């Protein structure tokens, strides 16, 4: 790939031609922009702010659960906190953060001048803050905000919900429109904008995983739109999709929701797999082990994600045959996932490893995500799930895959590419503090949840019986510590955005491979206006 360098230098010299435009100044730069790097930055900042807002809600939850009994908030508000925490973290933090990374990186990785549809790119981003303004605003209307859990099961979201459900439904519609447009942009960019020579099986894995993620998004976000629409008509227009008296079925809601919901959880992890597959080879100074198997494993996971949804519903009384089918289909997913984990380990095997901050997060990801994966395998076993269902064991499981999985991968990605974005090395001391504080506290936070869950503590309840008190105090302390640790990250990112620090080379990391490391640091406002040739 180093042969591309000549073209690239020529490219950056030739940027001063007639209709070229550099970065404009002021606030309107960000509002009107069509530049993939600007929009990536907007997505990432938005995701970070939402991460802190959703995190603040988690702090409320953990404060209430610090001791048994009701002390700080009333149960209805507690329910709003669990609901909106989940919605914000899924749709406001993890997904926009991955979309931000996709915007920044995919054009640079495949040698494209920008995303394929730059104006629509801007639209996909700017409708998101409005959607979350509506969702957060709904907390202040009479009767309170959504309090039915992020999964909004009927009849909690229909018969028993407050008026604000109307606002919830339309804000989810906007989030869906944003995701669909973003995903269309990613797919079209990858299909149509690759530089000459950038064949399918030369694409970096981050690009591959995002391509498959984007396909999942286009396939399932419209189903979510259908689900919220049916909730809207059931609540406000007298339909009975989810009401047995009219021939419907509340369990049908769960089928439709999880047909969206299960691919959705892979939407939140596949780009993470891509990030780890970029970082591990760099710091092991070896090529990724089993590139092709990584691609096929990603595709297999995506396809399987469409036939496992009912493992979220083992206790709804499905026929035994269906329970068996969904159990085995779910267990099958551990095969391609295992392929990935083994490939990462094999990449590191006998590599000349160094442990820079991105690699630390990547290693933490591999270990801790695997814990989450294994508890997922336990939950997949139908008879066992009857015991675990809706307990803190489930909460532990999905926080291991989403926090130490998705979120850690996002942090790894930020540390890995931040020097390329700003041209300066971030504050390594702060980064180390951030890593170690996060690593310790996140385990104090989520690991004991396995124990209280197995012992039977139900999720989404503001009170608990006395025997869970000790562990819950530990969990809350871990929670507060993890929350505070993220302020270190905030300080680090602000510092990096002010471009304080040592200048970095174009390649930044010694072992880094790929087109994005061939261009100058910081990456110029426009890259690859004429495509490089990839050998």
């Amino acid at each position, binding site marked *: 790939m180093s042969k591309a360098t000549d073209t690239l230098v020529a490219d950056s010299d030739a940027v001063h031609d007639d209709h070229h*435009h550099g970065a404009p100044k002021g606030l309107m*730069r960000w509002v*009107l922009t*069509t530049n993939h790097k600007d929009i990536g930055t907007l997505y990432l900042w938005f995701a970070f702010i939402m991460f802190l807002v959703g995190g603040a809600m988690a702090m409320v939850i953990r404060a209430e659960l610090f001791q048994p009994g009701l002390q700080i908030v009333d149960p209805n508000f507690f329910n709003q906190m669990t609901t909106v925490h989940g919605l914000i973290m899924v749709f406001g933090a993890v997904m926009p953060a991955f979309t931000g990374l996709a915007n920044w990186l995919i054009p640079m990785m495949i040698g*494209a*001048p*920008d995303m*394929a*549809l730059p*104006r*629509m790119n*801007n*639209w996909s981003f700017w*409708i998101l803050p*409005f959607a979350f303004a509506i969702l957060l605003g709904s907390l202040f209307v009479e009767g309170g905000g959504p309090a039915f859990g992020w999964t909004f099961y009927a009849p909690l979201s229909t018969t028993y919900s407050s*008026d604000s459900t*109307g*606002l919830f*439904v*339309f804000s989810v*519609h*906007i989030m869906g429109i944003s995701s*669909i447009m973003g995903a*269309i942009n990613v*797919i*079209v960019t990858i*299909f*149509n904008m690759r530089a000459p020579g950038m064949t399918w099986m030369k694409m970096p894995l981050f690009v591959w995983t995002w391509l498959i993620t984007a396909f999942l998004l*286009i*396939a399932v976000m*419209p*189903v979510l*739109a*259908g689900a919220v*629409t*049916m909730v809207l*008509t059931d*609540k*406000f*227009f*007298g*339909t*009975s*999709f989810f009401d*047995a*008296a*009219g*021939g*419907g*079925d509340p369990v*049908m809601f769960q*089928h*439709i929701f999880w*047909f969206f919901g299960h691919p959705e959880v892979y939407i939140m992890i596949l780009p993470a797999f891509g990030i780890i597959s970029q970082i591990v080879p760099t710091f092991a100074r070896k090529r990724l082990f089993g590139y092709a198997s990584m691609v096929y494993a990603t595709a297999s996971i995506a396809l399987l994600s469409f036939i496992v949804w009912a493992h979220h519903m083992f206790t709804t009384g499905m*026929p035994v045959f269906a329970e068996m089918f969904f159990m085995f289909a779910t267990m099958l997913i551990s095969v391609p996932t295992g392929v990935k984990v083994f490939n990462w380990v094999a990449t590191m095997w006998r590599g000349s490893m160094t442990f820079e901050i991105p690699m630390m997060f990547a290693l933490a990801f591999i270990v801790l995500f695997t814990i989450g994966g294994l508890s997922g395998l336990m939950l997949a076993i139908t008879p066992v799930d009857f015991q675990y269902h809706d307990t803190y064991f489930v909460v532990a499981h999905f926080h291991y895959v989403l926090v130490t999985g998705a979120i850690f991968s996002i942090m790894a990605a930020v540390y890995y590419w931040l020097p390329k974005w700003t041209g300066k090395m971030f504050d390594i001391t702060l980064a180390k503090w951030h890593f170690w504080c996060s690593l310790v506290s996140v385990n104090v936070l989520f690991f004991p949840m396995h124990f209280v869950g197995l012992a039977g503590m139900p999720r989404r309840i503001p009170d608990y019986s006395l025997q869970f008190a000790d562990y819950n105090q530990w969990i809350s302390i871990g929670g507060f510590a993890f929350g505070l640790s993220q302020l270190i990250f905030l300080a680090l990112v602000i510092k990096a955005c002010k471009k304080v620090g040592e200048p970095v080379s174009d390649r930044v990391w010694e072992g880094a491979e790929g087109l994005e490391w061939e261009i100058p640091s910081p990456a110029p406002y*426009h890259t690859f*206006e*004429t*495509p490089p*040739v990839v050998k």
Partner: protein
Amino acid sequence: MQQEYQRYYVPAQSPWPIVGAVALFLIAVGAANTVIENSNNESGYGVHILALGLLTLLVMLVGWFKNQIDESMGGLYSDQLGRSYRQGMSWFIFSEVMFFAAFFGALFYARMISVPWLGGASNNAMTNEVLWPGFQAMWPLVTTPGGTTTQEMSPAGLPTINTIILLISSVTLHFAHVGLEQGKRRQLTTMLGVTILLGIGFLFLQVEEYIHAYQELGLTLQSGVYGNTFFMLTGFHGMHVTLGTLILIVLFFRVLKGHFTPDNHFAFQAGSWYWHFVDVVWVMLYMFVYVL
């Protein structure tokens, strides 16, 4: 090898996306408030906010499309950009397919699972006996477990006529497209005009059918899961036909202005794909909502 490369057009800053974002915000807030106010029998600002949002969206669409048309006519677009648009449109249509799939899924679930189970099928004998005694599973569900009654919408008559209308419209639109590709302007305008009239005719008959359902059959949106799926599927389809017809009308005027050439007419192609898609959805609807 770079001399061959046609620069990919990356537009400079554009005001339209943010206008569109504000429009969607107003539409969402307005629609939500309208719905909430109606259910509480209050009057409020919801409808006005909604109208303002739709108006803003219209302004955005006009402005954005005007930009696009000017750029396209100004020769800024490359073949590669044309492929981006075509692929983008195809994936958008796929997302629409999945949206309808959610409602078809609800229909199939009701017909094959929830209604039979309420009637005691599978291992649900006690559900039927204890919770819904006397309820008999049937489709169309003209008597719900809760006791609401309605009548079946027969596929004969209006639905069949509408099916024929839409199928013909797909053919006429195809011939319009062929006319465009072969530079036969007269064929293009006539066939496109006929397609638009067929679309309007379909919508007119659909309204007639709804009036018939509400006034004579007592089949309403509230008539249990049969009425729910019937009106949600045909209703969303009708909204798509309305949008498709509007797109075709805009295309008609653009044809009159001479915007399209045999090898540069993405907008026409996209509108035509959209129309064919809406047509296929109707065929599925006709089969599973009306006939079977």
